[in-house]
């Protein structure tokens, strides 16, 4: 079977050992001050985010199996990378996700029913990024890698606007773009790094290396650790244990701060694993062994962080509250999923152009009249 690890001579940044004890690697040193600033409440929030995202993800996969959704791309196993990076972003930052960043959407304030709607097939976007409640979390992009260029262009605009690197971390903006190991092979992603370096954009490339692009192992995409590649484009780059939520947070916080303060684009490669299938349409038994998956289940980001919190003395009541709140969260999603209505038939004509367009008007009217006639009305 294909080798599935691109190893680096430098160990990835890690602060929590697999058993949850606090034992930072030497590579973690520059990032530790960002952890010192976290309160117990912050820690509890990280845990709550991960548990909620996991519960939501499992619920959504169930809804797909019940025929409620066309498809579900699970984030199971990647919660540490997503919550750490998502919590590191500041309110004024802009997030360009791919299609699996459910935990980041949750953190940014998006009503996750929007993701359900996309996967159910009632809308292409599910939420409106111009609504401030959605935390500058842009709609998903399904064409692999395309959003990397959009993020870079947006970050160019942030810079041209003078909205970054003024020295005020509370207002200076940065851009974060999420993409996968498979996406690193696309021209768009490589061109994004070229432009980012050229214009020194205030931007972090957040690469979740979950080791698979559907059935293709990361070793087919790259013979070198992926973060090393970014250095060739002139981007400071680091590899982090993505299943360590604290390490993901600290690394993201530092590189966002660097990007925000005029340091130019940065890349973070978070090593993690796609525990589930690529999507509910996929059958991973065709191409990978349960053994390898199990070895990553043993590195579960939630289990690890829970052990850390327990060592620190978090109460049993805290854990049970988080779990019951997550249950409530998913029950609400389930109920609202069942209540989603199909869009009106003319919805497809509504926002093709920003202004009236003769083809849209004509075809909207034709379809409405046709449907009325089929319903038995006058032709």
């Amino acid at each position, binding site marked *: 079977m294909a080798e599935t690890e691109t190893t680096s001579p430098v160990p990835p940044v890690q602060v929590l050992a697999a058993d949850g004890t606090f034992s930072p690697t030497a590579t973690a040193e520059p990032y530790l001050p960002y952890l010192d600033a976290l309160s117990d409440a912050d820690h509890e929030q990280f845990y709550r985010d991960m548990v909620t995202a996991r519960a939501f993800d499992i619920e959504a996969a169930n809804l797909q199996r019940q025929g409620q959704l*066309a*498809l579900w791309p699970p984030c199971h196993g990647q919660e540490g990378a997503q919550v750490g990076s998502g919590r590191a972003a500041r309110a004024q930052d802009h997030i360009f996700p791919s299609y699996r960043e459910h935990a980041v959407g949750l953190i940014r304030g998006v009503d996750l029913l929007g993701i359900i709607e*996309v*996967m*159910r*097939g*009632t*809308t*292409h976007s599910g939420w409106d990024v111009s609504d401030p409640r959605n935390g500058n979390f842009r709609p998903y992009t*399904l*064409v*692999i890698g395309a959003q990397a260029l959009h993020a870079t262009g947006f970050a160019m605009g942030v810079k041209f606007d003078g909205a970054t690197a003024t020295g005020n971390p509370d207002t200076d903006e940065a851009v974060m773009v999420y993409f996968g190991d*498979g*996406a690193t*092979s*696309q*021209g*768009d992603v490589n061109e994004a790094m070229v432009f980012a370096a050229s214009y020194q954009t205030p931007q972090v490339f957040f690469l979740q290396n979950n080791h698979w*692009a*559907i*059935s*293709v192992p990361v070793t*087919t*995409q790259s013979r070198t650790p992926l973060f090393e590649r970014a250095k060739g484009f002139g981007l400071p780059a680091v590899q982090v244990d993505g299943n360590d939520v604290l390490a993901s947070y600290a690394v993201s916080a530092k590189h966002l701060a660097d990007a925000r303060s005029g340091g130019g684009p940065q890349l973070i490669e978070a090593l993690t694993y796609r525990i589930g299938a690529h999507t509910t*349409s*996929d059958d991973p038994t*065709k*191409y990978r062994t349960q053994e390898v998956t199990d070895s990553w289940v043993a590195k579960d980001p939630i289990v690890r962080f829970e052990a850390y919190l327990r060592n620190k003395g978090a109460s049993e009541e805290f854990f049970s509250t988080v779990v019951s709140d997550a249950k409530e969260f998913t029950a609400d999603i389930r109920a609202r999923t069942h209540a989603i209505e*199909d*869009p009106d*038939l003319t*919805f*497809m*004509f509504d926002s*093709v152009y920003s202004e009236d367009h003769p*083809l*849209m008007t004509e*075809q909207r009217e034709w*379809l409405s009249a*046709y*449907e009325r006639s*089929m319903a038995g009305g006058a032709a």
Partner: protein
Amino acid sequence: MTMSIDAQVATMPMAKALNAGLRQAMADNDKVLLMGEDIGKLGGVFRITEGLQAEFGESRVLDTPLAESGIIGTAIGLAMRGYRPVCEIQFDGFIYPGFNQITSQLAKLTNRNEGSLQMPVVIRVPYGGHIGAIEHHQESPEAYFAHTAGLRSVSPSTPNDAYWMIQESIESNDPVMFFEPKSRYWPKGEVDLSGSAAALHASRVVRTGTDVTVVAHGAMVSVLLAAAELAAAEGISLEVVDLRSIAPIDYAPILESVRKTGRLVVAQEAPGNVSVGSEIAATVAERAFYSLEAPVLRVSGFDVPFPPAKLEALFLPDADRILEAVDRALAY
């Protein structure tokens, strides 16, 4: 029909027929190789290449890095080196990162080299709707390629055509865009293994009739056949033509049919604006004007991005929409 069991005829779905056709082409010529995302171990997301990597090895069936421009661009290089690459694009909507290599390079290289270079590259594109999928997974992009000089574009509608046309496409020394109607992957049909019934670019009358000619390619052919059944029950006789090839288009059977019926409806899943159907309407108007009793009518997807899946049944022309156009044609 006789009851003798003809070992040369097998019943299978189009997905299996394509698999069998690819296997045959690879066995016939060791320069044929397959490349694409997830086509090896997984056998492709539609399992069209299932088992072929195990049978022919990893240098004949390549699980490529995730990059369509890379797939097409390296296929061009492989063709320059004497190979006959068959590329799989995972879904219709993901062909565009490879668009530059297809339209500016693959399509033009023979011409640029004044005939001294041939480009025997096949690009397989699962396309079209009816599968309830999310954005970019149900599109019909064939007009872009039919519009491009230097490319041949075909689309089978039956397992038999799929089996033969994939092999004929691989034998072609020109690049062939091979559009696979993914909603027809699973229905079974008979495949005559003894020989191809028609040339790669031949269009064919698949149901004879007298009142209105209806023409389509790919998945829409089955919709036309269903419409013809419904029409027959109302005493209207439709003649159904399966285009099979959309570049070049074989007009002879279409014109012959129109000269008989005097009426033509062209159907397609793709948006109608600047489409294959538009081209047929224009050509038939030019060449059979005096035979026409009614304007040529198009029944198409609307001129909008493919809508969210819950609206696909409204977007995609169905038998009723075909019959509505047939009625309009007959009203002249």
